[in-house]
């Protein structure tokens, strides 16, 4: 009835469950759906405000994604935020966010300079941007080689999805290459990424020391198979955190053994939160998938994404009251999103993520990551925590944000005056 509708928080879900990227899109979407479901089943909503979640299929296409957004943004209580799960869609929605006053959450993807909240007040690349990811991988490689100075003269190749997603890390890697004197070559792969023969022949010919992989969907497994086919050692391949899940390595079978990928903090596996998911969702037959698939890398990522969304709303509710939040209110919540170690533990995410603190100046919140390796059966964490080096990143972020502001004729906020 209308009374309950008033107390329902509508949340749109831009997902893809078909097409070339479905193998990766599906587990993520399942994680999100299950977590919202858990909140409703276990807690009766966020402080009593029930979640009304609606998915819309984007097929990873920007125009379809925008159509979904336009369709859903005004539904029910109105969308408090949107998670595009595609860098292309993120780019398009960034333009709409200030007008519609709906924050865009791009957790672990999107536009790297958008972490600068003074120019991008509506965009939240939580947990890490591609520049962070690339930086972490470079640090790891340097460590293996015995120091950043040892990178001199090395050859590093980036095999990337030819889209804004794949192109993001190029700026940072170019910068790092200049700093440390390694040779950096970007090699594009066209959508959907099943045609990589020439790319890998080129790699075979130039024999780089390392290959970084910025792929998504079928492109990932194809890259690993092609690497095996030309005999490039998988131990020297490093994927971004979107190229480090089960669907990426399983089709390559033994060929994937030794392949590495950066972690967006978390890996696969079942943690405290999964007990609740089992008890309140799966045991009631309301799960979005099979129980076996719960706990996969991308499933967990979806869950974390949903959790951060909810916690931001919860924080906003503290200020604005226990009712459905609007985009502007949710934005305040996001900008003040702080989770301490205790909070993380209380929420059942210990072992999945570390504490996070978002602020006006830093919409990323934290930029830590590790490296994992596929041993043929499962992912194993093989490194300590790294943190992307803000000495390198910050000037780049500021320069890029400044250029954006100039192009768009935006006057940046002064973050020192906020909070």
């Amino acid at each position, binding site marked *: 009835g209308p009374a309950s509708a008033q107390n329902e928080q509508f949340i749109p879900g831009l997902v893809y469950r078909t097409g070339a990227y479905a193998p990766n899109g599906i587990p993520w979407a399942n994680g999100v759906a299950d977590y919202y479901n858990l909140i409703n089943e276990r807690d009766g909503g966020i402080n009593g405000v029930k979640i009304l979640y609606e998915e819309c299929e984007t097929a990873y296409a920007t125009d379809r994604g925008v159509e979904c957004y336009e369709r859903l943004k005004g539904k029910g209580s109105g969308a408090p935020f949107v998670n595009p799960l595609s860098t292309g869609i993120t780019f398009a929605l960034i333009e709409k966010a200030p007008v519609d006053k709906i924050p865009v959450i791009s957790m672990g993807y999107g536009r790297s300079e958008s972490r600068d909240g003074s120019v991008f007040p509506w965009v939240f690349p939580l947990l890490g941007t591609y520049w962070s990811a690339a930086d972490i991988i470079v640090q790891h490689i340097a460590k293996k080689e015995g120091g950043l100075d040892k990178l001199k003269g090395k050859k590093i190749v980036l095999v990337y999805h030819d889209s804004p997603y794949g192109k993001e890390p190029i700026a940072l890697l170019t910068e790092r290459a200049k700093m440390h004197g390694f040779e950096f070559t970007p090699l594009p792969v*066209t959508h*959907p990424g099943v045609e990589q023969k020439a790319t890998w022949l080129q790699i075979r010919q130039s024999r780089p020391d390392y290959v970084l992989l910025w792929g998504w969907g079928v492109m990932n497994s194809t890259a690993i198979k092609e690497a095996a086919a030309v005999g490039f050692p998988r131990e020297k391949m490093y994927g971004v955190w979107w190229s480090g899940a089960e669907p990426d390595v399983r089709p390559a079978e033994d060929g994937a053994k030794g392949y590495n990928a950066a972690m967006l903090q978390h890996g696969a596996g079942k943690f405290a939160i999964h007990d609740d998911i089992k008890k309140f969702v799966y045991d009631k037959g309301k799960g979005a998938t099979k129980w076996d698939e719960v706990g996969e890398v991308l499933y967990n990522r979806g869950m974390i994404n949903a959790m951060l969304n909810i916690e931001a709303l919860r924080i906003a509710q503290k200020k604005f009251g226990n009712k459905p939040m609007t985009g502007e209110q949710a934005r305040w919540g996001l900008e003040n999103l702080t989770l301490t170690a205790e909070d993380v533990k209380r929420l059942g995410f210990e072992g999945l993520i570390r504490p996070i603190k978002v602020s006006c100046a830093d919409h990323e919140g934290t930029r830590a990551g590790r490296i994992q390796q596929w041993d043929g059966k499962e992912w194993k964490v093989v490194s300590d925590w790294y943190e992307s080096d803000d000495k390198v990143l910050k000037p780049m972020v500021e320069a890029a944000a400044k250029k954006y502001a100039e192009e768009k004729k935006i006057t940046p906020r002064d973050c020192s005056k906020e909070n």
Partner: protein
Amino acid sequence: MVLFAALTLAQLSGAKDVATASFVGAGAVVAGTAGLLALAGWHRARAARESRPPGARLQVSIGLACAVLGGVLAAAFSGRGWPMWLALPATALVMVALAYGIERLVLRRLVNQEGIILFMATLGIAHFIDGAGQTIWGSDIYKVDLGLPKDPIFLLSGVFEGGLLVEPTDLIAAGIAGALVISLALFFQKTRTGRALRAVADDHAAAQSVGIPLNQIWLVVWTVSGLVALVAGMIWGAKLGVQFSISLIALKALPVLILGGFTSVPGAIIGGLIIGAGEKLSEVFLSPVLAKTFDLAGGGIENWFAYMLALVFLMVRPQGLFGERIIERV
């Protein structure tokens, strides 16, 4: 252009780092698979054509939708624990049934229509197959285990560093492709049905008037191409896994087709060789140079190189290398 091929060959065999020569092997294989893909579209394309050059004869993408379907089906059957020798014929059966269905429901109602209309209709069918396939089998990447050897073989690695890369799957694929190409050629040129098929391609109405049953011809065409597509799908699947939605890859076969000439079998092979080798070589050698010289954001010229190559060829020979003369009469 032949000169170009010759030059690259010379360059390769003369090169110190003969590892690059692996591209020749790779080229041949790409050619093989491309030729195969090409064929998946070939006879359909022929069948759709009319005496006036029709708008388009692009029935290839559906071929690939079929190919993928074939691969997925075979994988799905064998995934259920069916042995390959059972899964394969079962898949083949499904393909024939599909051909029958398509003929019954669609093609017989579109007799005597222009090529471009048929092309459009087949894309509609491809959409349907895509959707239906994903509903039934999901969007996962399926592997097809044909038991082919997977590990790359490095020949002559004692002689020079890196050796010569040969992928056994590719060799087998090339072999199968060659065999298919030749048997199809014989089928088209020498048999009664093949002749009827070509007649239908020229003029539907006249073919009907002499008693060639269009329905049966369509069925044959779709079955044969379904089976060829199945083989293509299997090989593709064995190498890289199959998933729906990769059908656009079929576009890769087009330059081969037009370069070789639509109706020619040696055309498919030689066109495949030229395109395959040209495309890969250009990507490996030309693309980095281009990217450096013009300060581009990466190379990736292989996407258009094959088409440009084909375009340049066509400017010289509009009917492709071995294609039939385009009949221009009044």
